[in-house]
């Protein structure tokens, strides 16, 4: 038992953003040092909190010492503890990457404001996970989103501004839906605390107000995490923003909003309500299957690397919702695992895309010929994560897909299996295309025939080797390698995340 206040993960990044802003007025600039320290402290604190939760169970932190139904409560249980570790890790790694990336790609002039907004976004992300209060959740959702809208517009591309504006309009509609849902719940119960709502709500389960509240919150959050028919903002926002922002958008913001939806479905409402009283899971099941299939086909049609990665989030978010919609304990375990796993995979992939664009200015998959030889470490990481996206055993992607598939069989939904297989085949196709271009396609017709001999010559002459190799700076490569390494480590030593996710799934379903 390590004594760590839960508020640390929110307060530290928030104070860091203010500190950066104040210090920015002086000539002494140390914004990235502060950012890294703040995210590192959050990460260590989240590990300690997860450890504590595994020892003693649910941790409740009273903000300002006010007792929960009146004051705001921060909660760490198996579910939030697990997701918190994943998100704080992504925050730390993307911030480390941003130090090098932002100076070179976004511009020196926007360096400082980027660091401030990044810290605000991190504050919101961590806040959504730990809060036990519905209105507080809305506030953190908006803190995250406002910072994200600004960060998307920070890119050099003109299109990013329009993408950001579209995201802003749709994101705000989603947020207002969440707010209306929260308002309805407050109207009927007079409380905003999640645990308190859970206790009071059952007597109102036949009320239309509660149905409307549930529908509003579900649709609002579904817009935010781009469930299939509500995904239109995602493609341009996730592909035109600076790579490090794309990484946070896909790895953290989508995950955290999906986390919030599962929280509302199983903690605010009881599992019995979500699964039996209203057919929410049946609707979500259909939506998620369409998301997986259509997402896969759309992704296969993309020619731009970042756009392809953005598009594949669609199907992957479908997987998370699918696990929840199956509502078997094993499938929900798979969903919770996929929150972590997809964070690691997509976070890493966008950072890789950023490194490739930074070093060789390649945007299209068709132009990627020879990148495997120029950037061996980066492309090795890409290959590992690509295999993980497909779901090859010993990678994290396999663990979550396996759990969702077995859960589907246990629930008697055999028709899920072909969907998972088809989507995996599509993933093989679109990641295979990139890997084939990067490693095996010839750079030009004249060199093509002798590519093997060319390779051999490279090995013999170290000087020529160093000439053609142009890896991104270490500040960018190290976070990428950590992401790729974790895909293997957590896929091989899968019992660690699985055991925690299992506890979380049991807690969500049985409410203990």
């Amino acid at each position, binding site marked *: 038992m390590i004594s760590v206040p839960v508020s640390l993960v929110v307060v530290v990044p928030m104070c860091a953003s203010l500190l950066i802003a104040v210090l920015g007025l002086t000539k002494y600039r140390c914004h990235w040092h502060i950012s890294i320290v703040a995210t590192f402290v959050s990460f260590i604190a989240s590990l300690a909190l997860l450890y504590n939760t595994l020892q003693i169970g649910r941790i409740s932190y009273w903000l300002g010492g006010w007792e929960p139904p009146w004051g705001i409560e921060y909660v760490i249980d198996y579910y939030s503890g697990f997701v918190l570790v994943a998100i704080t890790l992504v925050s730390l790694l993307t911030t480390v990457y941003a130090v090098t990336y932002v100076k070179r790609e976004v511009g020196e002039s926007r360096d400082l404001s980027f660091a401030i907004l990044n810290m605000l976004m991190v504050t919101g992300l961590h806040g959504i996970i730990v809060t036990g209060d519905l209105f507080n959740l809305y506030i953190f959702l908006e803190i995250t989103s406002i910072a994200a809208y*600004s960060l998307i517009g920070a890119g050099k591309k003109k299109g990013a*501004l329009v993408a950001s504006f579209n995201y802003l309009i749709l994101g705000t509609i989603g947020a207002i839906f969440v707010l209306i849902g929260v308002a309805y719940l*407050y*109207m009927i119960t007079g409380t905003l605390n999640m645990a308190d709502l859970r206790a009071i709500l059952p*007597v109102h389960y*036949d*009320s239309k107000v509660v149905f409307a509240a549930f529908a509003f919150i579900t649709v609002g959050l579904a817009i935010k995490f781009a469930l299939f028919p509500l995904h239109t903002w995602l493609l341009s926002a996730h592909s035109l923003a600076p790579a490090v922002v794309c990484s946070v958008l896909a790895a953290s913001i989508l995950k955290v909003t999906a986390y919030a939806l599962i929280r509302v479905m199983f903690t605010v409402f009881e599992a019995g309500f979500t699964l039996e009283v209203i057919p929410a899971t049946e609707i979500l099941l259909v939506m998620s299957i369409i998301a997986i299939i259509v997402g896969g086909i759309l992704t296969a049609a993309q020619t731009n690397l970042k756009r392809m990665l953005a598009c594949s989030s669609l199907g992957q978010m479908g997987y998370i919702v699918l696990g929840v919609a199956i509502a078997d304990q094993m499938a929900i375990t798979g969903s919770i695992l996929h929150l972590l796993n997809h964070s690691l995979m997509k976070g890493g992939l966008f950072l890789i895309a950023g490194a490739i664009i930074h070093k060789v200015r390649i945007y299209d998959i068709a132009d990627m010929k020879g990148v495997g030889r120029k950037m061996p470490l980066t492309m090795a990481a890409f290959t590992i994560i690509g295999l993980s996206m497909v779901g090859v055993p010993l990678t994290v992607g396999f663990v979550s897909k396996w759990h969702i598939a077995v859960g589907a069989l246990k629930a008697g939904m055999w028709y899920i299996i072909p969907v998972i297989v088809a989507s995996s085949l599509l993933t093989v196709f679109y990641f295979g295309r990139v890997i084939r271009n990067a490693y095996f396609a010839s750079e030009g017709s004249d060199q093509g025939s002798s590519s093997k001999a060319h390779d051999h010559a490279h090995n013999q002459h170290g000087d020529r080797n160093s000439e053609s190799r142009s890896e991104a700076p270490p500040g960018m490569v190290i976070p990428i390698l950590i992401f790729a390494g974790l895909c293997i480590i957590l896929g091989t030593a899968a019992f660690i995340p699985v055991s925690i996710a299992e506890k979380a799934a049991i807690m969500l379903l049985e409410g203990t």
Partner: protein
Amino acid sequence: MIDGTDNSKALLLDNHNTCVNRAVCDDDQYQSGQEGYRSEYLSDGGISTFNSHFDKRGWDLPDPVPYVNPLPHVMILTAIVVGVSITAVALALVIRINIAYGTIDEDEIARIEQDS
């Protein structure tokens, strides 16, 4: 006033001539100790006498005193602040779009994007 419940609702006027919106439920699932005063979030945020929390916990409290539940006001105020910030960001984006494209006409921006 948004209300979709089947439960009957009585609008009571107390001595202080303040409007108290009280949810009285005839549902048999609903225990008598749990009936509470609703705070209106979207409509009036008006004066109420007691928060449902006090009734729910069965606390022995002195005679109800009319007071304005501050929570809906705080929440609406916060939502307004959020709305203002979003508007600020949106307008800033529109200005940047205008600088980048020389227009804020959506069709024209789409045409410029297609040409490039």
